[in-house]
């Protein structure tokens, strides 16, 4: 399986005005590292408002002007410049946005799915392709002439998914595709991603919904206070969570209603509150002295990764 996307030590900060002409640099993402291969679904799991959508914006080069992006984003091994991103987006790499609010409310569905065309022939060819894919997603010809406000939640989701697939992408980035949908539509949406995976497409699923992540993802990246603190295999989220590595991931798993509803104290440090050492130091049960002063790097354990000093000597079975 060829590697599609590498996100290496990406950080994103914003310049904000505080009072008068005073500026401050607000770091929203501190260190985000992950990778996706062909035919793989990787979920990035983070709480709402944690800034994980910015990752999608960074990949597509659509961050606002006052944002500072550091680190590398590679596609098939090549570091992407802003120009590369503009070239690839909408072709090799596509976005499934959060809601129909991302569609043009005054444009018919079919026209915006096809997008800009140079000639009548091109339009005809694209229109045919669009019809085929829409049909595949159970969207009848009547949908072509509808406006976004006429779509139901489930239909809108199918329109967004099928529009994304029009360009035969290699990589699909889905930003919070499940909130506000009922169970049936969520299931249907998740099935779309499973089908993409079967077709060899890589999927980056950005979500706060742990159930959705566990349902479709092969690996799950846990996002905490601006850091990726662990990338775990889906199968690690079983039993008592004994195969999960980071103490936060374990706690998260055990806090699920079905797994005991266990409570740990504290909250994720917000921007500006993040301690000098490990971002999880204040809540950690197994912390060392050095965790207070030193920030752990993301340890590469093959498919899995974890940001914790405890595993520097490697992972022993059963820990």
């Amino acid at each position: 399986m060829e590697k599609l996307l590498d996100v290496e030590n990406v950080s994103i900060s914003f310049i904000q005005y505080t009072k008068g002409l005073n500026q401050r640099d607000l770091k929203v993402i501190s260190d985000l590292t992950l990778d996706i291969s062909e035919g793989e679904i990787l979920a990035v799991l983070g709480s709402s408002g944690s800034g994980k959508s910015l990752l999608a914006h960074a990949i597509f080069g659509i961050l606002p002007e006052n944002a500072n992006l550091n680190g590398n984003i590679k596609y098939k091994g090549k570091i992407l410049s802003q120009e590369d991103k503009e070239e690839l987006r909408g072709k090799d790499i596509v976005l499934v946005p959060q809601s129909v609010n991302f569609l043009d409310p005054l444009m018919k569905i079919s026209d915006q799915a096809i997008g800009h065309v140079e000639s009548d022939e091109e339009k005809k060819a694209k229109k045919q392709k669009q019809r085929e894919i829409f049909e595949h997603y159970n969207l009848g010809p009547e949908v072509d002439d509808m406006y976004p406000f006429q779509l139901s939640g489930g239909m809108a989701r199918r329109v967004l998914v099928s529009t994304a697939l029009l360009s035969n992408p290699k990589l699909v980035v889905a930003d919070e595709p499940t909130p506000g949908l009922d169970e049936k539509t969520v299931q249907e949406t998740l099935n779309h991603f499973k089908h993409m995976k079967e077709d060899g497409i890589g999927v980056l699923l950005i979500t706060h919904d742990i159930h959705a992540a566990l349902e479709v993802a092969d690996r799950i990246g846990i996002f905490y206070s601006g850091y990726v603190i662990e990338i775990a295999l889906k199968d690690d989220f079983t039993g008592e969570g004994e195969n999960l590595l980071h103490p936060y991931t374990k706690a998260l798993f055990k806090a699920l209603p079905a797994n005991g509803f266990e409570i740990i104290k504290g909250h994720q440090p917000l921007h500006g509150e993040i301690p000098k050492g490990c971002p999880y130091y204040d809540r950690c049960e197994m912390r060392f002295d050095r965790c207070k002063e030193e920030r752990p790097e993301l340890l590469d354990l093959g498919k899995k990764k974890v940001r914790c000093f405890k595993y520097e000597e490697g992972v022993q079975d059963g820990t």
Partner: protein
Amino acid sequence: MELKATNISFKYPSAKKYLLKDINLELDNKKIIGLIGDSGSGKSTLCKILSGYVTKYEGSVTFDGQPLPKKGFKPVQLIYQHPEKVMNPKWKMKQVLEESWDVTDDALAEFGIQKSWLTRFPQELSGGELQRFSVLRSLNPNTKFLIADEMTTMLDAITQAQILDSVLKIVKKRKMGFLLVSHDMPLVETICDEKIYLKDINGV
């Protein structure tokens, strides 16, 4: 204590069909009830009717035999899914809280709210932090019944467990009524004494 809905029917002015039809519901503070339904089935509208936000409906809602007050503090409080939508963006969090009641330090600690957050604006806090405020704000001493409409859907599992634990402690202590609206079955099974499916009581 009893929150009672009698023959509630509701339709949007522009719609032909009723969204809710002849719903009868009796809720008390002895059992915690979970209300379950698909999105678009009218769960949230029913919550708004029960808490007095929507007033144009057929039927009646009474609390302890009295109609819900039109003015002043409402004994039935509703908590939504999106805390950022129910707070004045130009107020600092202290003002947002004090709009409802003078919150004690104990209560702040119980909900894990840091003192430093009180001087922040809503957009400077994350969804989980805001929801702590939103819930605490609704727990005015005059609140008798709490309706949580997908209150923790946007939150991570740990924050969800923390907030619900704090709420349930207070609900029990003050002998309040509590209705949990959610599509998360394991959550409903964990917290609620009984389940109600909206489709079973809705006569549309």
